[in-house]
């Protein structure tokens, strides 16, 4: 089954991340790099995203008219920081992978609708 992992975090997670010393930051990136290397065979396309200050939202009104706004869809409480596609047999395998994610914060697991 295909899933997408959304790597999310709160403002507090972001603050904790920003407070890391350069040495700790290097370590964290190394851990994350190892996670991607270890799971390479099961990962599809994915990316880290620019910060929430870079986000722009297009919101459709009930009459269908699009409104362009600066900022996130979710009102700044939880921020999606990146995503990756994951291809594994079932949810338990996806959960095992997500539990080993070294980046902290929150990982949301969403099954992908399979195209037939």
């Amino acid at each position: 089954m295909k899933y997408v992992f959304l790597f999310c975090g709160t403002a507090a997670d972001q603050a904790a991340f920003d407070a890391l010393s350069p040495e700790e930051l290097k370590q964290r990136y190394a851990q994350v790099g190892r996670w991607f290397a270890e799971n390479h065979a099961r990962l599809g396309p994915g990316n880290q995203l620019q910060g929430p200050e870079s986000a722009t939202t297009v919101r459709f009104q009930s009459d269908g008219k699009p409104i362009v706004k600066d900022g996130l869809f979710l009102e700044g409480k939880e921020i999606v920081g990146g995503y990756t596609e994951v291809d594994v047999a079932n949810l338990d395998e996806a959960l095992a992978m997500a539990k080993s994610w070294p980046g902290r914060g929150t990982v949301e697991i969403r099954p992908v609708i399979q195209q037939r």
Partner: protein
Amino acid sequence: MRSAAVPAEAALVEVFREQAGRITAALMRRFGDFDLAEECTQDAVVAALESWPRDGVPANPGAWLQTVATRRVLNQLERDQRYRRKLARLTVEPQPDEQDDRLRLILICCHPALSREAQVALTLRAVCGFTTAEIARAFVAPEATVAQRLVRAKRKIGLAGIPFRVPSRPELGERLSEVLAVLYLLFNEGHLSTLGAVSSQRNLAEDAQWLVRLLTKLLPDEPEVLGLLALMKLHLARGASRFNLSGEMVLLADQDRGLWDRAQITEAIVLIERAGHLGRPGPYQIEAAIAACHAEAPSFEATDWQQIVVLYDMLMAIAPSPVVRLNRTIAVWKVDGAAAALHELEEIAPVLDGYHLFHAARGEMLTELGRREQARAAQLRALDLTGNPAEQALLRRRLFDQ
């Protein structure tokens, strides 16, 4: 072939309990779809409830249910093309041992990706053969709400790809503690509240105990399963003395220990010892050991409180929580006196300010220390915070006694 007499409904309950999980699991293994297997087994149970009291119970009720359920699955597959497409969705790992199927079924029903409410409802229906109406009655919820909850849970199992498998260690330990939490909740729902009696035939506490006993057979070397079974037995052993004739709650200190079921207590202690030999202590084993200390004591005052403090220290080391600390404080009270206990109690005051039993315990300690005004204020606060009528009555009596 039909037997002449219709057996008591209690016997039917046993048939459903023994068969429902097996049939659901077998259909799931064969057709690879949880929703379909569960739905058709439920149909068979409902059909039996309708026709057995009228026509008599078939000679082999298990085979009857299996046949009806299987026929439903095949009809459904023929009728509904969509189901065929769904079949590929569920990953079923091959398992040679037929017994294990029910373990896989329990694990899928109590998967951590499902809400606790969904876990409870699914377990009762798929493993114990409850009807939706019975679950609704047990939880005083509208039947439509329970039905909706079940539909949503089963949809999630399919869509999210929750597998039908028994994980290996260490994952099994984690999954098992989720299962035990569900079963203990079911037990408490049946044992502690008067709402637990679904009907004269079905009681959640009994079904929960049956499920744990089943788990002790499927996983004989899991000490926490034995611990939970022992804990349930110890609660049930003291059940008769918890309420007096006018339905008022009786505190442990005032219970008639002559009413306690000695045979159950002995069985529980054997289970605790068996679990102990496996050398992996856990919260249920420790809680059972604490309950056993109470069960073995000739009186409240003659209880081995020192041992209970030690057990609470162990529990705090494995599974710390404010409520465990509160309970530990009560044992400390008996060992070191009210002043020492009150001192410890104040440390957890900020976390437990909204918990009625915290204020009730504090009130009693203050009373013992002769601080009447403060004691009264604490007891009023406790009364304010509880919604349970039996506990309210008890607290009111206590306020009047002073």
